[in-house]
């Protein structure tokens, strides 16, 4: 496997956009290795299915390749790479789930139709996460696991900041109100 380039994400994107074939391929593969686990994790949040998550991984980076010359105009990275990737992974995950016929066919898939995390193996936290509506679970994970700001969450989900705050508030309250979670984490 080729050695990874020790460059920032922005520098790697510039190489992917503008450099010659060998440097562009090396830069792209470096980005792939840097973010493939993140893409798989986000895909698993939606699908909870290994095969679908791998399909999402492949589709996500194929999509990015098509954005780069000579097929596309290039990528303008104006934020963190995770902020750029999240909506792509989210949309592809929903599309893949629809293809897998796990939902009723519809043009606009409501995130609340997405499945809960798998039933087993599980613990108190897992059980509570399963009970959370997907939109609250999604915002909680973006805030506390991915460490995105409220503004960044609003941007990646294309919703108002006020809606982000509301979903976070409801998600945190649901966690706090669980007797098991309260006993373990809030005592």
């Amino acid at each position, binding site marked *: 496997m080729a050695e990874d380039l020790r460059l920032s994400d922005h520098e790697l994107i510039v190489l992917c956009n503008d450099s010659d074939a*060998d440097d562009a391929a090396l830069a792209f*593969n470096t980005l792939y290795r840097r973010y493939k686990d993140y893409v798989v994790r986000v895909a698993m949040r939606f699908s909870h299915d290994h095969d679908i998550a791998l399909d999402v991984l492949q589709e996500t*980076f194929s999509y990015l*390749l098509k954005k780069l010359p000579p097929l596309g105009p290039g990528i303008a990275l104006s934020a963190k790479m995770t902020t750029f990737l999240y909506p792509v992974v989210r949309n592809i995950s929903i599309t893949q789930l629809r293809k897998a016929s796990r939902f009723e066919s519809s043009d606009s898939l409501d995130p609340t139709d997405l499945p809960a995390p798998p039933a087993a193996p599980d613990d108190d936290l897992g059980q509570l996460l399963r009970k959370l509506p997907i939109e609250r679970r999604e915002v909680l994970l973006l805030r506390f696991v991915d460490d995105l700001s409220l503004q960044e969450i609003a941007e990646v989900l294309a919703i108002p900041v006020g809606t982000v705050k509301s979903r976070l*508030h409801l998600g945190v309250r649901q966690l706090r109100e669980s007797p098991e979670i309260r006993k373990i*984490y*809030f005592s």
Partner: protein
Amino acid sequence: MDPRDSDIEDLPQALIDDLEARDRGMTLLTARVDRHIEAQAFAQFSARRKRRRVPRAAWAALAASLLVAILVLDRNPIDDDMGHEIYADLDGSGRIDIADVLHLARQRERLSQEEINAFAMKVVSLSSWEKAS
């Protein structure tokens, strides 16, 4: 400011750690996808390499065309307005052309670079003049 904000940033660190651990535990073996993406990237960026080769091919074609034009158009001896013997059909091909310049270049021990350059310029300018006319 929304009073509910005070709740938002207030999860215990242990709970955040467990949320992270559950999320980061979802790693998969991606060897199949790794190979696919690497091959796809190689194929796409190779197309970029081919695209950048086109100008070089165009330059080669232009140079070849120029050489053919010189060989075809220049069938008459060049007048030796300097009285110098170098403007002649040196290779015995029946015409004075770029091949004669090359012939001269091989005899550099008795000719200066300026003389060879002058001959080359005369061959080229004559060809251009004949092509125009």
